[in-house]
């Protein structure tokens, strides 16, 4: 299987993650888009692990998962906190840092 296909697939997923991050206003969906981008990069890591014939890429992918898990825990806590404070999960409402 030609690794180019995996690269293109990962790029597509990453781009979809970008678009999702940019156009969605629900904090949870935005967060999910970030997860999608992380997964796309994981796919690349695994692909390149196979391309180069060693397991370092897979180990890196593992680390990404661990970090993503930690990140999700903290990120979701923050979203919950914001929701408690403002009764909203809309990222557009969190715009106090403006001109």
């Amino acid at each position, binding site marked *: 299987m030609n690794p180019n296909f995996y690269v293109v697939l990962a790029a597509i997923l990453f781009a979809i993650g970008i678009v999702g*991050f940019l156009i969605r206003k629900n904090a949870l969906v935005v967060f999910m888009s970030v997860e999608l981008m992380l997964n796309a990069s994981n796919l690349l890591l695994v692909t390149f692990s196979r391309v180069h014939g060693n397991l370092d890429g897979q180990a890196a992918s593992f680390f990404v998962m661990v970090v993503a898990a930690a990140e999700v825990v903290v990120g979701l806590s923050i979203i919950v906190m914001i929701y408690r404070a403002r009764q909203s999960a809309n*990222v557009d409402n969190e715009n106090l*840092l*403006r*001109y």
Partner: protein
Amino acid sequence: MAPTGLFPLAWLLIAVPLVSAAILLLAGKAANSWGHYLGTLAPIVSFVVALALFADLLGRPEAQHAVSVPLYTWIATGSWSIGVGLLIDPLSILFALLITGVGGLIHVYSIGYMAHDPGRRRFFAYLNLFIAAMLTLVLADNYAVLFVGWEGVGLASYLLISFWQHKPTAATAGKKAFVVNRVGDLGLTMAIFTMLAMFGSSSFEAVNAGASKMSPAWVTLLGMLLLVGACGKSAQVPLQSWLLDAMEGPTPVSALIHAATMVTAGVYLVIRSHAIYAQTSAAALAVAIVGTVTLLAGAWIGTSKDDIKKVLAGSTMSQIGYMMLAAGIGPIAYPFAIFHLLTHGFFKANMFLGAGSVMHGMNDDVNMRHYGGLAKVMKITYYTFLMGYLAIIGTPFFSGFYSKDSIIEAAWEKQPVLGALALIAAGITAFYMTRLMFMTFWSSKRWADGVHPHESPAVMWVPLVLLAIPSVIVGMVMNAWIAGWLAPAVGGEVPANPSWLPHLSLIGVVTLVVVIAGVGVAYMIFGRTSIPESVPFTRNVFTIIGRHDLYGDAFNEAVFMKPGEALTRGVVAVDSGVVDGAVRGSGALTLGLGGGLRKLQNGYVRSYGLTMIVGVIVVALALIIGRLV
């Protein structure tokens, strides 16, 4: 040569009036009661010193006539240095004598003239300051120190012209004199800079020695710059406009500054720079032309004015013009310029003081149409004035005859056109001075009922008498001697066979005829008919132009003031439009950019994310393109 005998004390000449001026200014009201005596004493002391030095010089062989008295080093930098030193030579000692002698008499006169003026002490302080500055000017041994005196004279004249500063006209006249003098100063300063650049020194010695080595263009430029300076100080066309207005000052000021001394500074400067003019016929010719134009212009103004002081001021312009003409003719006429300067110093001071005496008797009225018949009531003033009158028109054997005749003769020889013009001006001089005499002293009385003309006190008429005597005899006394005396100092030529008698020549006779014609015409116009008390209407273009000072002020206003104002407005407009506009514009631009970019800070995370991603794409593109290239 090195100073010996009395000469190391020559600095006293300047120091005495300067210290006196300082005392009078600083002592305040305490000096009110005795200040004028101290002020009068100072120039007399200086005169005595000058007289002693003069006697010393007379007793020496001709080779030792120039004594330089170095005092101290003023400015010393790498390649050049300027010392403060005095140069006492035949030229400067004559000036010193004239300044202190005539100045001293004017001081004495002022005691009487200013007796009731509350600012008399201040007046004497300024007079002393003027004497000190003028002496610095003529005694300096280099142009830089001369310039110090030059500026001091300008300052003193400003203070004295606007002495009655409560009169707006006097304040304006002082300011005008100051400003016009600055134009001349510009020429002199640039000339001094040129000298420093070319010779590394501004001393007369170095300049005289170096002048012959300069390129023609530079030496002509230098001559022209010096001429500009001389024009400013000596009220020569085109910088003549201040002199007539300067008559706003008290009459002794007019006599001292604007007749006998200050206005002669320009002549002195040109004569002092004879080595430069010897190298450049163009600049010398310019001096002569300026002199001729001025002598005609001054005479013209003198014919049309009714204000006695302004007539005299016009005649001063005219006589200074003769001196400049002589200075421009060349070495042969240099002594005549100084000769005429001296005789003019006496008779013009005499006449100005006489005019002051008349005004004193006429309740400070200066309009000659209100005079008439004063010869009978002010006998001393009349006779002394008459001596001055006879001298200025060139009556044979009076002082003006010798000096003016010599100038016209020399001009006729060297520059026939200018000589002819000077000849005509001599006739005009005779005309307007005769007119003045008719309107003031002869004809029938026209003064108002309340006015009681009377002779002035002795303190005023004694100086008149003392000035009238040299007005008569000084020409006769000095005629044979002065050319030889001045020759080494001014590079002039010694006449072959000097004598006290005027030597007869065709041009001398013609001059005499022209003068008699001028007197006759004046008699026909003013002597046989009564003089109207108000200014008669006239269609005579010459009279109208003369009454308006040849439109000198209008010319200055149209050519310099209006464009200057327009330029100033333009500069202001450029400043507020372009400079301020740029400053404000950059501020507004920054503000606008800030206001525009501010909108990007909308607080939406998504927007920031978009910006970030665009940035990432741009950077990545740059990297990729960079690697491709």
